[in-house]
């Protein structure tokens, strides 16, 4: 108790003497904690508690039967007549868009008659929830009507209401026959009878999934093995929820990278805690000497400073908790959009601030603070009482060992380069991350030498250009080299991450733009209306396709058909292209660099495929390898004849000839159309003609430019969260600079007061502090730019490649980087405004006689 009292008196109370600086330090920790927490919470909500949309109303079953392109209905009969009593639930699964709200919901077709008891139960609970005017029996009378649907209560609709649904490229006016309870929206879907769903989706003779419930106590593995024997070769039987697990696995790299990015603000915060405790140690050197002289042990001193850091950490963590919760709300929306665009249709769960999240936030807040404070606290511990009392609090200079630090920096740099060459571990670029950390650490060690050199090299020039204030500022920063170096390192780290991610995203963007220029040679592109998602492939009516192909001015129509498949335990997209329209792929974008005609020619009529680059990375395959694909009820082997660069999806594509696909999956409806206009014909006229004949169909028509714009819009949206994370890191660093400048002003008040005696005006003092802020910003920007370049090489060629498998061509997004650096520079100067005001208002009479 006594010790606590002493701790409060000696360590905590003095913190409140500089409330602005205390607030900035705590805020820095709070933002660091908040960002990590927000990404964690949002990640859990958007993907962590990931629940495949198709699991809606699936219930608790043991096994599921699936096949690429659908399970033949004959399998239902096979399972129904299986000797053991199985409860089987065949389902049609797709998506429908609510025309009024543009909301996309799962469209589930189930055998309502066979499952009457279950739905009767649902119906009874619905009655009380919705006060439906229709009795349940009457509701079931409408089962045979293909436009009868049942909806969840979260849609706030009632039995008897009409609902316009966009399914594939057509709008259906459906009647709501009943409402099932779902207040949270977690099970929101459009439910219809399986026969009606088959009819509307034109999916006769096939179902998408068959759910199997085994008798109680049955051995699931054994049953899976036995049932496999009675199923056709292309049909897969697996535990229910495997799709969800596969999706979760697919999202792991995305979440992992985002989570690591969220730690940047915390790393920047760590530098600032280090600086705060270092300043505290230097200022209290005499006090340390006195308490050591009157009986405090070295451990007492160590614990006191670690305790100070822990207090800052606890305060920051508690402030970070609500802040993180608020940030998570914004982050989850962005993340959910990205998950939907790049990976899979999903529905974000609710954001839950669990006791574990609170514990985690406290742990990282306090942990990072205490670890950051270790070095200065150890320094305090080793202060000799006699020296401390004799020297007072003077020199910060003493703490730097430039030559030794440069040596350590070189060593870390070499280790970083070695780590960057290493392959992924368990599919994760762990050594790539290690390389990043090593190179950031190397730059932190090299910072004193850099700051010292640059201050020395530029002070003369600055003196001439800016005036005496610049010379004084440069000298002052060099005099407090350790403090300056830590500040520059903190801001440089934030800037470097901004630059490196900026280069990575810019390079990726430029690569995608160049790729689209070669991949979008058609004049018009068509797809069914509704929000696009990586795993949704609604189709366009065949008759409409044929009519478009016959329009005057249309030279050719390329039909692309895509299916969602599971390959080797991971979701993938299998698609076919129309090889009769060869000119749709004008230039070679293959690993082999062979001409397009040659590669695509090999696909024609044969069991050959080409695969996208991410697919080869995910499944560790290459040209010449063989793929065993389940197609309908058959399983066939396909040879990979080449690999192509692709940036449309991270899921991985398998591409084959349309005729080959139709041999196995005879549904000819295309998912997308690429229309080539005859030379000399007006694209706009053809577009108008298509719109005219597509009346009654909901088709979106894009020019190649529209498509590029749309793709870039989605691309930019995907990386919006990345920019937000970087902005927080920069904000934390700038706050740190402001706090440190306040400390610097307080520590140098004698010097500032003296300058007033020597004829400096208050505006010159103001300018001096702003020049210091500007110098810090300049040094950090310069160091950040160089560091950022090296980090970008690791991001582009190591982390991205090992996480996602994309080949990105390096590109400097000059305008973006210059804009970002200017922003940081201005923000740094603005951060000096308050300290400059404090400095200009110092009473010179008071401060000059203090000592």
């Amino acid at each position: 108790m006594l010790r606590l009292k002493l701790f409060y008196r000696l360590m905590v109370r003095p913190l409140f003497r500089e409330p602005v600086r205390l607030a900035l330090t705590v805020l820095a920790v709070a933002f660091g904690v908040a960002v990590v927490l927000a990404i964690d919470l949002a990640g859990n909500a958007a993907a962590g508690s990931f629940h495949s949309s198709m699991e809606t109303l699936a219930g608790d079953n043991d096994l599921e039967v699936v096949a690429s392109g659908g399970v033949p209905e004959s399998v239902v009969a096979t399972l129904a007549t299986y000797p053991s009593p199985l409860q089987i639930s065949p389902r049609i699964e797709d998506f429908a868009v609510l025309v009024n709200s543009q909301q996309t919901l799962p469209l589930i077709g189930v055998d309502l008659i066979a499952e009457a008891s279950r739905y009767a139960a649902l119906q009874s609970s619905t009655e009380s929830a919705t006060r439906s005017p229709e009795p349940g029996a009457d509701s079931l009378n409408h089962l045979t009507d293909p436009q009868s649907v049942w909806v969840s209560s979260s849609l706030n609709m009632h039995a008897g209401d009409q609902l316009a649904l966009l399914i594939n490229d057509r709008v259906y006016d459906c009647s709501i026959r009943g409402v099932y309870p779902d207040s949270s929206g977690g099970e929101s879907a459009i439910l219809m009878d399986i026969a009606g769903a088959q009819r509307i989706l034109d999916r006769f003779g096939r179902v998408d999934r068959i759910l199997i419930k085994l008798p109680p106590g049955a051995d699931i593995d054994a049953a899976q093995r036995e049932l496999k024997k009675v199923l056709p070769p292309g049909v897969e039987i697996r535990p229910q929820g495997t799709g969800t697990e596969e999706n979760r696995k697919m999202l792991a790299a995305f979440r992992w990278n985002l989570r690591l990015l969220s730690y940047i603000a915390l790393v920047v915060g760590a530098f600032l805690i280090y600086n705060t405790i270092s300043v505290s140690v230097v200022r209290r050197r005499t006090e340390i000497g006195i308490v050591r002289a009157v009986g405090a042990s070295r451990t007492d001193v160590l614990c006191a400073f670690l305790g100070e850091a822990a207090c800052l950490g606890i305060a920051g963590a508690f402030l970070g908790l609500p802040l993180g919760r608020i940030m998570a709300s914004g982050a989850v929306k962005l993340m959910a959009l990205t998950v939907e665009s790049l990976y899979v249709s999903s529905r974000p769960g609710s954001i839950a601030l669990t006791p574990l999240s609170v514990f985690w936030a406290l742990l990282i807040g306090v942990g990072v603070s205490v670890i950051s404070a270790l070095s200065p606290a150890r320094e305090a511990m080793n202060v000799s009482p006699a020296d401390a009392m004799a020297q007072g609090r003077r020199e910060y200079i003493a703490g730097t060992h430039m030559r030794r630090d440069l040596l350590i920096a070189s060593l870390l740099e070499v280790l970083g380069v070695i780590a960057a060459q290493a392959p992924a571990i368990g599919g994760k670029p762990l050594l790539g991350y290690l390389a990043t950390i090593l190179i950031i650490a190397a730059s932190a060690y090299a910072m004193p030498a850099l700051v010292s050199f640059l201050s020395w090299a530029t002070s003369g020039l600055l003196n001439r250009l800016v005036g005496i204030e610049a010379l004084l500022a440069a000298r002052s920063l060099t005099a407090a080299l350790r403090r300056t170096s830590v500040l520059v390192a903190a801001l440089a780290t934030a800037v470097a991450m901004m630059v490196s991610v900026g280069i990575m995203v810019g390079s990726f963007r430029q690569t995608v733009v160049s790729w689209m220029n070669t991949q979008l040679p058609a004049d018009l592109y068509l797809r069914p209306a509704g929000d696009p998602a990586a795993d949704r492939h609604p189709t366009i009516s065949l008759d409409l396709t044929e009519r478009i192909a016959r329009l005057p001015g249309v030279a050719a129509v390329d039909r692309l058909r895509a299916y969602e498949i599971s390959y080797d335990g991971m979701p993938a997209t299998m698609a076919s292209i129309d090889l009769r329209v060869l000119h749709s792929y004008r230039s070679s974008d293959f690993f082999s660099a062979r001409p397009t005609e040659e590669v695509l020619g090999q696909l024609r009529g044969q069991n050959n495929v080409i695969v996208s680059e991410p697919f080869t990375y995910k499944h560790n395959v290459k040209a010449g390898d063989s793929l065993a694909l389940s197609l309908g009820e058959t399983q066939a082997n396909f040879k990979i004849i080449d690999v192509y660069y692709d940036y449309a999806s991270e899921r991985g594509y398998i591409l084959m000839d349309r005729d080959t696909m139709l041999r196995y999956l005879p549904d000819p409806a295309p998912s997308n159309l690429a229309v080539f206009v005859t030379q000399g014909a007006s694209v706009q006229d053809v577009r108008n003609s298509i719109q005219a004949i597509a009346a009654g169909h909901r088709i979106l028509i894009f020019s190649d430019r529209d498509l590029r714009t749309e793709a870039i819009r989605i691309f930019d949206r995907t990386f919006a969260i990345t920019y937000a994370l970087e902005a927080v890191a920069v904000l934390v660093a700038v706050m740190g600079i402001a706090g440190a400048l306040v400390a610097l002003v307080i520590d140098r008040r004698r010097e500032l007061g003296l300058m007033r005696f020597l004829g400096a005006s208050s505006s010159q003092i103001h300018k001096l502090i702003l020049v210091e802020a500007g110098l810090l910003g300049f040094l950090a920007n310069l160091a950040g730019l160089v560091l950022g370049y090296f980090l970008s090489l690791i991001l582009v060629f190591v982390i991205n490649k090992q996480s996602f498998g994309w080949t990105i061509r390096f590109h400097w997004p000059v305008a973006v980087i210059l804009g970002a650096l200017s922003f940081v520079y201005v923000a740094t100067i603005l951060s000096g405004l308050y300290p400059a005001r404090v400095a200009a208002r110092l009473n010179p009479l008071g401060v000059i006689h203090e000592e």
Partner: protein
Amino acid sequence: MAILSLQNVSKHFDTDGQTVHALRGVSLAVESGEFVALVGRSGCGKSTLLHLAGAMDFPSEGVVLIDGVASSSLDDAKQTRLRREKVGFIFQSFQLLHTLTVQENVELPLLLAGKPHARGEALRRLQWVELDGLGTRYPHQLSGGQMQRVAIARALVHSPKIVLADEPTGNLDTSTGHVILSLLQRLTREQQTATIMATHSTEATTVCDTLVRLRDGRIEEVARR
């Protein structure tokens, strides 16, 4: 006309709700080329008088005329200009900037005033205080006496009409203190400055032209030699 004139000047401070009377009705006139020593116990108002004389503070009552200009009539910018042009300060603890070299310290007032050719002037002043050749050293490489000579060179670099020295020998041994006092005497004679020195040193009183004894904020005695 006196270069510095204090007319019935009083100065009070409010500290923790209590009024402290640092100076009470002080009148004093100092001519160019006059070396004045202010003596008295700690807290008698010596430093306050120096601050008022250097336009670092305003009187609560009365008028302080510096080269004929009332300091109270000036705003902050004009006060700053007045100090830059007419006043030089010397402190007990030298108050050199440790991040600057000796010559940079000396030229600082000129640079702050935006004057050209600061380096040449600084070197001339260093020569005058017999420190030529030490211009590129840093303060921590000098002895106490040398540091105070640098401070004197800095106080003189802009050719002020008034030099204010607050205990300039307080941190020095007797012989070094003697050298500094001789230097101040010489500068008063050669540069024709009005030098006002607050001191506890009895030796200091022997080199000055006028001895002003302060007690409880009042002038107790003015002895001209």
